[in-house]
């Protein structure tokens, strides 16, 4: 049994360790190697030059800006069940429901506001939605505006966002 055990010698505290200076020299060697490698060819550095170079590694699971999905007939898939607003930890979803009288369903949102300044992009609303009406698959990672009101998304804005990965329509069976 003992032949399987590999005994490693503990490092002894020698004069070389007590002096500190060899260790400092080794550290400086490492940093200087990186420094010299990068200064001789700056374009080899993997940093993304952001505004000119856009990220290419946004995957399907990336939580970008929200959107509301559509049904087959193009109407909003949301049934105003308030599940997302309940699940939201930062209370940033404000829904006002109204009765739906076109016979497709019973309820729909009259207004749907999402305050992206309060949103923490946790994705709980997507998890909570029973009819796949809200998704975060737009791939939009940068959101800019001039005033606070620009960041409060209303229903039309959320409906106008396009998904970039999966199908456009809601997958819920109505």
């Amino acid at each position, binding site marked *: 049994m003992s032949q399987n055990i590999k005994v490693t010698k503990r490092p002894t505290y020698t004069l070389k360790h007590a002096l500190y*200076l060899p260790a*400092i020299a080794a*550290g*400086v060697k*490492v*940093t*200087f190697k*990186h*420094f010299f490698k*990068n*200064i*001789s*060819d*700056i*374009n080899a*550095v*993997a*940093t993304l*030059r952001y505004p*000119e*170079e856009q990220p290419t590694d946004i995957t399907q699971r990336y939580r970008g800006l929200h959107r509301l999905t559509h049904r087959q007939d193009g109407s909003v898939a949301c049934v105003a069940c308030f599940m997302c607003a309940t699940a939201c930890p930062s209370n940033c979803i404000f829904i006002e429901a109204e009765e739906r009288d076109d016979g497709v369903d019973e309820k729909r949102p009259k207004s749907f506001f999402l305050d992206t300044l309060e949103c923490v992009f946790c994705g709980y609303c997507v998890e909570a939605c029973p009819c796949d009406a809200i998704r975060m698959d737009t791939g939009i990672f940068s959101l800019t505006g001039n005033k606070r009101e620009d960041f409060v998304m209303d229903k039309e804005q959320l409906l106008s966002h396009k998904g970039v990965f999966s199908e456009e329509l809601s997958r819920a069976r109505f």
Partner: protein
Amino acid sequence: MSSSAITVVIISFTLGTLLALLTIPILVWMERRVASLIQDRIGPNRTNIFGFRLGGIVQSFADVVKLLLKEEYYPAHITTGRWLFMFAPIITFVAALLAFMAIPFADTLNINGEMLRVQPLPIDFGVFWYMAIGAVGVLGVIFGGWMSHNKYALLGAARAGSMVISYELPLGLSILSFIITYNTVDFNVMVHFQTGTALGFLPAWGIFIQPLASIILIIALFAETNRNPFTVAEGESEIVAGYMTEHTAMKFAMYFMGEYVAMNTASAVIITMVFGGYQLPYFATEDLLTHFSTFAVIIMIVLPLFIYGFIKWMQKNNRVKETLSSDGGRAFETRFFTIAFIVMGVVLEFILLYLAFISQSDLERSIYIAVVQVAIFVMKLMLFNLFFIIIRWTLPRFRYDQVQTLGWKYLLPLSLVNIFITAIVVVGASL
């Protein structure tokens, strides 16, 4: 005083002020770029003036402008003594600036028989000056920390004060062994001592003559200037930002810039005392003057190679990846500086030609040598500042008790032992 003496004094004073003040943005830029390059990042390179970004130096000027224009804000709990709260950073800054002024930038100029020092303050006790003024800087830290009425600031100030007291001793004692070896307190004579060779093949620099004292000096100066690994006074993992927690805008900038001036001064002192100052290794000023033509021809050969290498490096690195469409004016900047450097090189070549073969005036030659020495000094200064920065991004911070242990239990006895050995050797050699 003759007019040439006044000219030399004014020029050297301007040079000293420029070297101390203009290196601040360059050092801040170096700190950020070197840090990012060490960590495989790029660092600030976007700020520009009409497309000229100079590798990102413009960012430092933009930062200074930003800090200047910020609101002068005083914490509400500081009721009495706001003037001292505001005055404290100035003490640190001015002390660091004054301490720099005793460094010689070139050899003593001989103009028509007058010996003129190229030193902002032409004093012959520069070591004492540095030790006296360098310790004043910490007073600003202590005043600022106390006036903040803040636990963290108070702790930072107490740490800075006790660290200065514990590291002033090894610093003074190691400087003492240098004084015994060089037999002078004059920086200029110290540099003269370090020309020539030791043991036949090494340049006679302090680090080869007094290795232990040199290492103690460098460590103690790292501690004096509050640089890593001795940043316990502003250890942000323990005490927020230490003594500068409550300081904002220009007051913070004063502390910040004072730190860089102190670092610059420490590098200058280390170079002057340990690394041969403004002298080229192996060659004294007299050698250069007697073999001036050879020296000029060597420089005439080396200079174009250097400029060629720099231009090649710039053309390779001052551009963006091929995949990007816009280069933000980098191509124009590269073209401009290529032409500028070529013109500069040609002009320098012609000046060298004139000095080496046509003019036989000793005065012009000695002035030229002084200019070369200033250039060498600045190069050494920048290299050592780079060393300071690389050390900062290599080592983690010491714990506070480890700092004190290192100072009192190791460096102090070591420097005392070194003084004894030095004294025995010096007395033995004189017998």
